[in-house]
């Protein structure tokens, strides 16, 4: 095919075309795939989400959402005097960007419990990249306002490893026991602050930076060693040290609230593989649960039973692989059913007078 490439486009038209195209992609991403960064720096937590900002998750599952006034992926907490509130602390599994907010396990749990207990409010205080050490800090911040009756603390397979991140400073006593743990600003948070003027105004830049982060990290690793070395190496950390750190976190939570329930989510795809989850966190959490006397809920058997009955994986989406990543709609539904069954008796036991009186007056 012959070309007349010597006839080049006028430079002004070329620039206009390029700017027009960039604008098109900015709008396209905002409409369908990504909002600009919604994160704002926070002295204690590294960063928090801007209240009421819009967020689009498109890389794993697909959901458009809006943060509540506390900056979490949830509806605003109910402002009723007689409300019975459950607070759920957790990481990205609890934040559940991958599914519509109404189908996340916390919301489904609330719907289920509302059938039995009327004014129930399940409040999600979970966020992507929260370490267990964030949990006491978040609970402390919102405790006074929310006054929860029960606190559910969600852990995943990586949770104990997260406690070895570079930005966690641990103080040991002479016997080598953990006496204090503190969260410092991470390198990632510093980068976010630096780039904030750009990524909080452009969906295109924010989407691109998130997308190419693994590539850039890979390049950096080639030149100056692993940026996530702290976390990666944590897989080799001794079980005893993991238990100690988890016990420290759980004791910090116990100091804030008397009714705490632990929830351990098994590794993605465990129900499909049919093998038991033997992760270091699972072992450490079992030991920490015993040491602190906090009850531990494990939905692994419920996950497995559901998969064997229906053949539907509980993790994975149309844009990821079955049995990988975060919980999908089915996973959230099964988890909510498991939690409703497990938590309802505890709630009834917690305030018997309230519940009994309500049950005696159907229709109220």
């Amino acid at each position, binding site marked *: *095919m012959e070309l*007349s490439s*010597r006839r080049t*486009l006028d430079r002004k038209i070329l620039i206009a*075309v*390029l700017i027009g195209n960039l604008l098109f992609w900015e709008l396209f991403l905002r409409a369908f795939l990504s909002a600009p960064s919604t994160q704002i720096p926070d002295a204690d937590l590294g960063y928090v989400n801007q209240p009421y900002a819009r967020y689009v998750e498109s890389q794993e599952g697909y959901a458009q959402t809006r943060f509540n006034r506390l900056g979490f992926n949830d509806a605003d907490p109910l402002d009723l005097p007689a409300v019975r509130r459950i607070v759920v602390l957790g990481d990205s599994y609890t934040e559940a960007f991958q599914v519509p907010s109404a189908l996340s396990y916390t919301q489904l749990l609330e719907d289920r419990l509302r059938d039995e207990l009327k004014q129930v409010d399940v409040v999600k205080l979970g966020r992507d990249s929260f370490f267990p050490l964030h949990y006491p800090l978040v609970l402390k911040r919102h405790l006074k306002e929310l006054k929860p009756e029960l606190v559910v603390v969600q852990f995943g397979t990586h949770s104990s490893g997260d406690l070895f991140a570079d930005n966690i400073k641990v103080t040991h006593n002479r016997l080598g026991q953990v006496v204090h743990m503190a969260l410092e600003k991470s390198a990632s948070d510093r980068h976010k602050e630096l780039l904030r003027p750009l990524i909080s105004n452009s969906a295109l830049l924010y989407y691109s930076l998130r997308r190419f982060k693994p590539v850039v990290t890979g390049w950096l690793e080639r030149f100056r060693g692993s940026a996530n070395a702290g976390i990666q190496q944590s897989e080799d950390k001794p079980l005893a040290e993991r238990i100690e750190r988890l016990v420290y976190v759980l004791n910090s939570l116990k100091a804030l609230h008397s009714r705490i329930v632990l929830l351990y989510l098994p590794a993605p795809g465990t129900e499909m593989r049919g093998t038991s989850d033997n992760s270091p966190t699972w072992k450490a959490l079992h030991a920490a649960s015993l040491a602190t006397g906090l009850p531990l809920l494990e939905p692994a058997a419920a996950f497995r039973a559901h998969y064997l009955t229906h053949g539907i994986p509980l993790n994975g989406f*149309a844009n990821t692989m079955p049995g990988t990543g975060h919980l999908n709609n089915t996973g959230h539904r099964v988890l909510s059913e498991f939690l409703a069954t497990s938590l309802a008796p505890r709630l009834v036991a917690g305030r018997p007078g309230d519940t009994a009186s309500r049950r005696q007056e159907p229709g109220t």
Partner: protein
Amino acid sequence: MIFSSLDFVLFMIVLVITLRLAQQRPEHTKKIILLVASYYFYGYWDWRFLSLLVYTTAIDHLCATRIHASSDDVVRKRWLVISIVSNLGVLAAFKYFNFFIDALNDVITLEGEPLRHLNIILPLGISFFTFQTMSYTIDIYRRKLAPSSLMDFSIFVVFFPQMVAGPIVRAASFLPQLVRPIEIRFERIVDGSRQFLVGFVKKAVIADSLSIFVDEVFRQPSAYDGATLAAAVIAYAIQIYCDFSGYSDMAIGVGRMLGFELPVNFRHPYKARNITEFWRRWHISLSSWLRDYLYISLGGNRKGRVRTYINLMATMTLGGLWHGASYNFIIWGIMHGTALAVHKFVMEVTGSEKVDIESEAFQQKSPGAILRDALSVVLTFMLVCVAWIFFRAPTLQSAMDFLIRIATWQDGIHWLHISFLLVAPVFFLWHWLPGNEAAKYRVVNYNTAWGVSACFTLLMIILLFSPLGLSPFIYFQF
């Protein structure tokens, strides 16, 4: 070095600048630059196999010179046999030795230990460059070609844009291009980059996106339901086409940037209305090679009807084996050979006219003709897809399980990856559009605001949506 890598972009920039700076130098200097660059490109993968390239080049050049120099048919044939045995010997040693050992171990029960494998790796592009060099000596034997200089022949063997995965270039079309000056010209770079961009989108956006779905389903077909498996086969059909034709487009584009024209390798194969037409649209450089150097050498259609069918079957079976040393490729070849023979038989019995490659499906306007074309295209596509199962599945057992699960519409996990749901409709709409080849170059050009917008859009699609990481081209393994 993969075309879609940053390393390759840097390599091309350095090569183009070097050739441009050497513009006023003698042609010999530019050829040395091109040859060194090609050896560097190949050696970047594994420098040890450069010796294999040098060996193949030297043997075939020697044989070709001797064939040409002699007028004695016996001597000529002797040198041809040396060339063919040498090339096939290299292929047999590196590609088929372990397969034949396995086959022998399966058949012969020996006392003691089974025959052992050779611990060797498959040299990149070995099937492509051995076929190219064989065509050179055969053409000289058939007196269709005169031998070229060692320098020109070396460039022909290792010309980096196509040596790893084709198109399989004929000496008769490539060597004359080395007679004229090697020039780096702006308009050729622009033209080549357009073709490269189209290939890049096919590879990075379509093929690589679908590979996530295809790889997972073919990895454990027993986990998925019949609908998912059927979708995965269709996805693979799209993936392998976009991967391979994307590579060919990039190779042609890179060749054009350097001032060389490489042959077209694909002409919308899934538009074919029958299997014969499919093979005139799919991997054209291989199918025409097999026709000219194997099918015709076996007698073609000159020795009666039955022998024609046998020749077709034999050619396609060997064509299957060319792709790799496994029973699956042999079965794939037999399936295509059988389909071609049956189609030829039906054509002869019904007295149908010959397949007209110039005509395309969906060009006629009458509803009846469109419906007939649609039916033929879909049936041909389904046949090709069934054969793809054997081509893609890791083992014969796995291919059979896959096929049975689709045929019996088994239950299992139902999973249609988003890439398939988004890509498949757009792909077929474009693929089946009449006149799409010409339209492609009207859309992708740098001369109009719309053309630049289209190019920029393609670039943004690559940047924003193609899977990250470098995945090698499927045909690299052959």
